[in-house]
């Protein structure tokens, strides 16, 4: 039984999701203790339970402590069953996070899987559907996975109501991946999307983002998208030969469109200045696939506390070593060795 201290490091939710994926794949049970011990509302929250329930459903896991507010969870996975799953996520929680938890598991199933997900698709503090589709999945596909996704409707917090489908074919062995540079930039574009709020906001965001980045005005497209509740998301995309990166900003009441743009553009600039091909979010998400592949490396920006915490969890489950090398000028190399 692997025991993980949930109060150590950062990103309680990420630790849980990584542990669930790896436990299901390796068949090794784990106990997570002191879950969110130092938080204002300690213990498991609904968004965490959603991931636990999904992983448990796929692996027919035996569990204890899988309830709201629980400070300790024991998870004993059974065999992985692929197939059709329907995950409805409450509190307009991120369907993407649930998907990223179950994706590595279902890659290890014997049969293809078809997932229907409903809830949030564009949540702050989580990858958006656009990010998943155009940034994360291309890298996974390069590693040999066969995954396709299609969005039916976007879901914003708090109304939710987003829905999409995913098809996953089993690919037991991922191939190692190496990203030393991004290659030539082929496409730069900006989408300012609004749902159920004035279109003018989208227009202002698009104009402002293009101007701040000194990109041609044609690169920015304001759009109205369909959703059940109000929503506004700014997506800035830089597609290069080997890596596409996306930076996302969310509009909220009380924050001006310009402020949303400025915040997002700042992230874009940091990324462009560093000249590291892999941004901080993608770096976090590539750790697990690379570790499962048993090798590979990529160059990224300064590792966050999330990254180091995540590495620690991975190393407790898998016989791999994840190394961080400072390349100078804010660039780091993450490499995975057996």
């Amino acid at each position, binding site marked *: 039984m692997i025991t993980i201290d949930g109060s150590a490091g950062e990103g309680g939710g990420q630790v849980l999701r990584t542990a669930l994926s790896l436990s299901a794949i390796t068949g090794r049970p784990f106990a997570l203790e002191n879950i969110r011990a130092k938080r204002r*509302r300690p*213990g498991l*929250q*609904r*968004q965490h*339970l959603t991931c636990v329930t999904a992983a448990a459903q796929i692996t027919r896991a035996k569990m204890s402590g899988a*309830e*709201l*507010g629980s400070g300790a969870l024991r998870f004993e996975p059974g065999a992985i069953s692929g197939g059709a799953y329907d995950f*409805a*996520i*409450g*509190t*307009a929680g991120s369907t993407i996070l649930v998907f990223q938890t179950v994706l590595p598991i279902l890659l290890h199933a014997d049969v293809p899987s078809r997932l229907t997900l*409903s*809830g949030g698709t564009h949540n702050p503090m989580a990858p958006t559907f656009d990010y998943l589709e155009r940034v994360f999945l291309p890298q996974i596909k390069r590693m040999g996975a066969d995954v396709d996704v299609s969005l039916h409707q976007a879901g914003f*917090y*708090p*109304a*939710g*109501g987003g829905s999409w489908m995913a098809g996953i074919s089993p690919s037991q062995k991922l191939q190692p991946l190496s990203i030393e540079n991004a290659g030539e930039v082929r496409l730069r574009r900006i989408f300012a999307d609004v*749902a*159920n709020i004035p279109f003018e906001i989208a227009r202002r965001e698009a104009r402002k983002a293009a101007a701040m980045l000194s990109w041609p005005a044609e690169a920015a497209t304001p759009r109205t998208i369909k959703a*059940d*509740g*109000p929503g506004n998301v700014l997506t800035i995309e830089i597609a290069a030969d080997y890596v596409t990166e996306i930076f996302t900003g969310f509009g*909220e*009441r*009380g924050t001006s469109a310009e402020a949303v743009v400025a915040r997002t553009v700042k992230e874009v600039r940091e990324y462009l200045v560093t000249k590291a091909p892999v941004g901080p979010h993608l770096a976090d998400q590539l750790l697990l696939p690379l570790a499962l592949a048993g090798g590979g490396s990529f160059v990224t920006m300064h590792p966050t506390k999330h990254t180091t915490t995540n590495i620690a969890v991975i190393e407790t489950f898998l016989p791999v070593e994840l190394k961080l090398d400072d390349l100078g000028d804010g660039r780091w190399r993450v490499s995975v060795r057996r």
Partner: protein
Amino acid sequence: MKPRVAIGFLGSTLDQGKNAERWQRWRPTVSLCQHQDLQIDRLDLIHGTSHAALAERVAQDIAQVSPETQVRQHVMDLKDPWDFEEVYAALHEFARAYPFDPDTEDYLVHITTGTHVAQICWFLLTEARVIPGRLMQVTPPRRWKDGDPGTHSIIDLDLSRYDRIATRFRAERQEGASFLKSGIETKSAAFNRMIERIEQVAIRSKSPILLTGPTGAGKSQLARRIYELKHARHQIKGPFVEVNCATLRGDGAMSALFGHIKGSFTGAMADRPGLLRAANTGILFLDEIGELGLDEQAMILRAIEDKRFLPVGADKEVASDFQLIAGTNRELARAVETGRFREDLLARLNLWTFALPGLRERREDIEPNLAFELARHAQASGETVTFNKEARAAYLAFATSPEAAWSANFRDLGASVTRMATLAPSGRINETVVAEEIERLRAAWRRTSAEPDAEILAGLLGAQRLAHIDLFDVAQLAAVVRVCRESKSLSAAGRTLFAASRAAKSSTNDADRLKKYLARFGLMWEAVAAR
């Protein structure tokens, strides 16, 4: 974890909203299902027919944000949701019909929505356990952020679950009881129970209280503590007026109690308000009430029944509202039989009668009271006096033995401690001091204790003659001799001894009857009364 069920009204105003903009407002019923740390598995949503469309939309929105929640709609048409009777009846009926199963489901009554009257009804039904659940309230976020469900709080009405409240209740009760007991230290469970009962009565009742018990059992102290307790609880604001009725005999009694007006009798130089009026809005403690004359008893009765009485020499009644506490060391029922106490007054006093046991019946309390008396002495004299270990053991051994009569109860104990403390060399009571004190107590009790029947008669008749008298007669003769010794004359003794016959007018010459009785044993009045 048991499935959680929330029951509540649809908020006809707060839950409103048709277009997408509704998600930018806080809607209590929807927010109920949006909390990260609370999952509602079923929501029983009550609404009127006219709000069916709104209820449906809320149900759909909940299905979207909380797929875990099953929403059941209940139609309840209220003519006036502010009419307490109607709302209570409707909710009571709803609750009665609801298949509550607290073993398998956890119920939360959502009180944020609905009228204040509905809130009150929810509260009453939950408090009465008609609804076996807890109340829940949701509040909007302090600063609006899109979608923030705000906070929720669950209120359990079972007061015993709240440590601080329970402790406080206990402490307050304790405070009451120990308040009364301070100065009456006790370890006796029976005595403790009685004190608790007195506390209850003292706090809740304004009726007279009768304290019975031997001299020195602490009646007067207890009466004063009852006064202080009621005063501390703001139940009375007047003074504590205490009087020993044994000191009120004779002509002055009426005027001392009820007052007089100037010139009402010789020497009445000025108005005198009297003790009853002084006790207005306070407590009047009449100790030894059995010693009160029959006229005064009648006046007292009227004063406690009507709160009015006539001062000596006055032609107008005056009013005084006081609570009466009476003390007695007599068996008042017997005094009623002999015509010395008014039956109607006793009946009035008899509502709350508490018999304070003497120290002999509370031997376990001698030790704590010893400590108390020492502390009191220390406070009064400014010097701390202690026992050495052996001396303390010796004193307690004697004090708790059957030999110790404690005929004046706590007064004896107090006096004994004062004597030892005074004689203690450099504040330490040693075995010598204790040994002397024990002798002193023995001698004192030997003097006061009633001689056994046989001893009384042996002194009069001689042991030899006594041996030929039946025990039957010994008991009667000894009783007669005791009365004779307490009486001034043969006639007085006769009146006491034959009071019943006298009242029935069946005997007129009591003195002769007594004289003849004594003669049967060869005794003369002079010999019997001589000692």
